[in-house]
């Protein structure tokens, strides 16, 4: 059974410009010990989904109009704020995008790592400190004893992200949500953090939802991939399915726009156009305007169709494209 199962999740925001459809009828599931990557460009609903799972959406303006988020048979959307608080940091934890702003400047890193232990477990100060030191060593912070009482401004970006990871792992969560944890870091540090997350995941057998727009990162870490476009799933499948047998024109476009080191390119390939206005979606495929394959068929709402077991695509034309590629 899946650890986390999201069914038919729809999230709207009421704004001055009208109702913004952030996520529409999203289905996904993550198994224990697996990594699910959610890929898509800015504004496609990745972070909103993550925050919905954590129960951190600002309501209002956000509103969950339908669906369920089930973790271990518990429907998270039906829980009270107090019950949700007991889960957060304990069963589900989250790593944020920017380690420079996600640590409190006036609290020591050591304190911030042990905080969730104090919140969720009845634990003495000494035990908490020991656990925090062990965590710091586990995430690869050198000289843990000394750095325990240092403040975030004394840490580099990569070290801060390690602190964030230690914070998230302190209560041994079943599910870890990483919202673009490497985006704000430089490339060499990115690789270190990814490697760290990989080993930690293996040793603790937790599930991970990894949100990113960086396909290089995805290839490195994912078991399964969901490609989101404008709040809906364009394509889903295993890493192999997506990278070797991509079927949705949007996925193809994403893969094409990755620059290749071996090819000499004067211009980077881009997908023409921009995301449709999320307050005013037209019926039919949301990729219609930017798609090179579009036809009248696409004016109907696309449904996810299974190509091979586990590999599903929401496009009428995938067969047609098979002939071309």
């Amino acid at each position, binding site marked *: 059974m899946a650890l986390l199962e999201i069914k038919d999740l729809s999230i709207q925001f009421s704004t001055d410009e009208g109702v913004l459809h952030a996520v529409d009828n999203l289905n996904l599931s993550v198994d224990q010990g697996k990594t699910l990557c959610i890929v898509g460009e800015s504004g496609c609903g990745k972070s909103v989904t993550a925050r919905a799972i*954590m129960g*951190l959406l600002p309501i209002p303006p956000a509103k969950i109009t339908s669906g369920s988020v089930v973790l271990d048979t518990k429907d998270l959307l039906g829980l009270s704020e107090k019950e949700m*608080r*007991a*889960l*957060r*940091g*304990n069963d589900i*934890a*989250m790593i*944020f995008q*920017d380690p420079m*702003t*996600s*640590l*409190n*400047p*006036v*609290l*020591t890193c050591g304190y911030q790592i042990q*905080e*969730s232990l104090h*919140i*969720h477990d009845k634990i003495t100060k000494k035990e908490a400190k020991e656990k925090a030191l062990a965590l710091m060593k586990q995430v690869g912070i050198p000289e843990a004893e*000394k750095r325990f*009482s*240092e*403040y975030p*401004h*004394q840490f580099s970006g990569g070290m801060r992200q390690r602190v*964030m990871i230690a*914070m998230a792992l302190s209560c041994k969560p079943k599910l870890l949500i990483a919202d673009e944890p490497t985006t704000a870091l430089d490339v060499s540090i990115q690789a270190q953090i990814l490697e760290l997350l990989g080993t930690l995941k293996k040793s603790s057998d937790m599930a991970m939802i990894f949100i990113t727009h960086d396909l290089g990162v995805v290839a490195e870490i994912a078991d399964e991939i969901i490609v989101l476009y404008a709040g809906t799933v364009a394509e889903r499948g295993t890493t192999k399915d997506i990278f070797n047998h991509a079927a949705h024109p949007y996925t193809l476009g994403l893969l094409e726009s990755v620059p290749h080191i071996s090819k000499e390119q004067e211009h980077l390939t881009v997908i023409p156009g921009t995301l449709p206005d999320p307050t005013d979606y037209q019926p039919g495929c949301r990729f219609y305007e930017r798609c090179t394959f579009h036809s009248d068929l696409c004016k109907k709402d696309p449904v996810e169709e299974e190509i091979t077991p586990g590999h599903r695509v929401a496009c009428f034309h995938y067969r047609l494209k098979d002939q071309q590629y």
Partner: protein
Amino acid sequence: MRKSKSLTQKALTELGRDKLAMISFAIIAAYILIALLIQTNLLNLPIHDTVGESYEKPSWAHILGTDIFGRDVFIRVIYGVKISMSIGFITTLIAVPIGIVLGALAGFFGGRIDDFIVWIYSTFSSIPYLLLLLALALVLGKGIFSVYIALGVTSWVGICRVVRGEFIKYRERDYVTAAHALGAGPLRIIFRHILPNVLPLIFINASLLFVSAIKAEVILSYIGVGVQGKPSWGNMISDAKLELVGRGVYWQFLGATCAMFIIVLAFNIFSDALRDSFDPRISNKTKER
């Protein structure tokens, strides 16, 4: 081993380098010391004793001369320190906690709670404190106690506004969201995560509040609704006006005014320096005086 320093510690080190601020701090400390000595009776001042003729000019025996009843003005000015400091201290002690708690609740929760608290402080700030004090004097009787209450319950509004604004700003910070994601409850987030960030600003505002309470007491005592029967600076200035022009008795006026001027100036310089040292946007260069 390198010692780790928080932003606060850094700011305090910087403040320590500011000579003018340190002189101001020494003056404030001296005033506090005098007030404490008088309060604990370690320094027993003969404020009611007649030591000479009425309106003696300043001399070595009585460096600020004597008043209408022949009492030493200098001794009375010193006693005024205790009254002023106690007014400043107790007003701050009443106003700051109220301001912090209400401001934090309003700013953090927003919505109806915010509307309600904003309504309360708009109402309070629209009552002139003089009127409130007159009303309180009728109920509780004139005196220092009424002054404490009146200044305390009217002056929390400024701090409340500041704290509310800061909480609105900080509740959207990433690290506050991160604290939510750890499962921290609202109280923990307010007091552990946001309040320490706001504290420097609260200190600065509290020290300004202290000064304005001192000034307010002087004004209240001057018009006769403040401290009764004790030599507060306001009372002394009020007494001095009788013979200031007619017989040129300037010393009573001078003593009380200077005593007030020095402490107000010291507090203002100190809170400015405090503000500068906590504000990272002001570079070290502009801080050098």
